[in-house]
């Protein structure tokens, strides 16, 4: 009881007496959490956007003749054996003709004289999309060529390569800047803790000399750290949420179609981020008082 009272008194006194540096610490942590979660959000959404952008990615396997139902089953089986796919579509010569004429639109009368089987039948394979799709597609294409009755395998090679190279570049950029930032924020938080210790060094020194118990000295720091962690991370996430809404607004306003569904963190992730910050800040300032309780 007495201990609790004393710790409470110490903590509130510190909060009020050093409110300037408290605000600074809070700002630092808020900014750090904001930066970190911002990059995390961008990264996790990037994967998503990458997927959506590659939506029409498919391998077209031209066959020399229309496959019957059993043959279709066999193709399907062989394809699935090699790699997971999103879906497989069989396009008969007639379907292909139909499509082509739709594509030509008003000019479709030019096809009038053609037999509706002049285009070869094909299988369209939609591979499961992921960030390493590019190399997988190449291997897939090579494999499909070895299947019997396959004339030719086509995919938007150039476009796919460009797109995935771009995505990869983006990934490197995001990861690198993320690393830089985590480095920076770690430095900042460590620095801030050091600064707050420095400003209370004399007090801790004195407390040690007058025989304060280790808990008496450390618990206020622990509580303070936990509070900084909590309010800082909550603030940072709130700022991120505001930013997120702003982006969405700005974003849907400027384009015709809201193509990308940009999502915020689910509550679980929010909880994890907050508890992690609390833990980090609390233990950070707790550990940093180590040298003062010695002797």
């Amino acid at each position, binding site marked *: 009881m007495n201990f609790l*009272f004393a710790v409470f008194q110490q903590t509130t006194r510190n909060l009020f*007496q050093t409110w300037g540096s408290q605000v600074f610490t809070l700002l630092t942590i808020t900014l750090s959490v904001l930066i970190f979660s911002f990059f995390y959000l961008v990264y996790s959404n990037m994967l998503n956007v990458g997927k959506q952008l590659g939506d029409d990615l498919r391998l077209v396997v031209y066959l020399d003749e229309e496959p019957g139902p059993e043959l279709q089953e066999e193709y399907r089986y062989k394809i699935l054996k090699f790699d997971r796919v999103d879906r497989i579509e069989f396009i008969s010569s007639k379907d292909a003709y139909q499509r082509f004429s739709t594509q030509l639109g008003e000019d479709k009368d030019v096809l009038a004289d053609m037999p509706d089987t002049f285009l070869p039948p094909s299988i369209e394979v939609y591979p499961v999309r992921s960030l390493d799709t590019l190399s997988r597609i190449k291997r897939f294409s090579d494999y499909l060529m070895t299947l019997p009755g396959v004339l030719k395998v086509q995919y938007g090679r150039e476009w796919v390569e460009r797109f995935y190279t771009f995505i990869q570049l983006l990934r490197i950029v995001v990861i690198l800047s993320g690393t830089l930032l985590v480095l920076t924020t770690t430095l900042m938080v460590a620095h801030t803790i050091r600064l707050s210790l420095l400003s209370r060094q004399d007090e801790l020194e004195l*407390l040690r*000399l*007058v*025989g*304060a*118990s*280790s808990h*008496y000295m450390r618990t206020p720091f622990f509580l303070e750290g936990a509070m900084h962690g909590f309010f800082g991370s909550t603030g940072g996430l709130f700022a991120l949420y505001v930013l997120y809404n702003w982006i969405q607004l700005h974003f849907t306003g400027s384009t015709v179609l809201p193509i990308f569904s940009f999502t915020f963190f689910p509550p679980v992730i929010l909880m994890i981020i907050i508890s992690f910050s609390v833990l980090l800040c609390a233990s950070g300032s707790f550990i940093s008082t180590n040298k003062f309780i010695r002797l």
Partner: protein
Amino acid sequence: MISFRKKVIDTSDVMVDIIKVTKSYPPNVHALIDVSLNVNKGEIIFLTGMSGAGKTTLLRLLSRIERQTKGLVEVGGYDLSKLSRSKMQKLRRKIGTAYQDFKLLPERTVAQNIAITMEVAYKRPILIRKRIKKLLDQLGLQDKYNTPASELSRGEQQRVTIARAVANEPDLILADEPTGNLDHETTGRVMELFKECNKKGATLIIATHDESIYSNTNHRVMELYQGKQMFFDSQSKKRQLPSFVDELSFGDL
């Protein structure tokens, strides 16, 4: 008086026991050389000696701010070099120290500065306030209760340091040059306070240059000279020239 749980040997009368203690700072400063001292409970003892003789060092050994290089330091029957951290913390709460460099927290008020020693011992706030008021009255600082320590004159700061040292009614009071910045009259007040503490049972070790505060008493005086024990006598108050220390004998130890 100082007691962790029940201590059987607590009937002993010895508060401080220093035996052949040497303290050296690297590389080659010998602050104390083979010093021995034995202070009984309830005693007042003065420590004198030229500047740099080792007075502060001796006091620092007693609250384990520094550790001796050689020898034995016992306080309240405990060998300090063997005391665990938490027990040392408890022991320190029984020792009140008025540091020579004050160690006040400049941004805290006078009251907050004095309260510290009582707060770490979990004293009740009302008690603390009453005690502080009384101490400030005694030291002539009644109107400085809420003044930040940085806005005090040096002498006022020194008095606050002394008030802080005695606030928690410690069993052992270490006062390092407690009146260096005080005039004659204020010095009198401080000595009054010390005597009062002594009457309540506290043992006092006072390091000082001011002969006037011990010349009219019959307390023991220990003189250090370049880290060595020069002169140790409860009666004589005259300074003596340095001589071979090792050949001195201390009958009453």
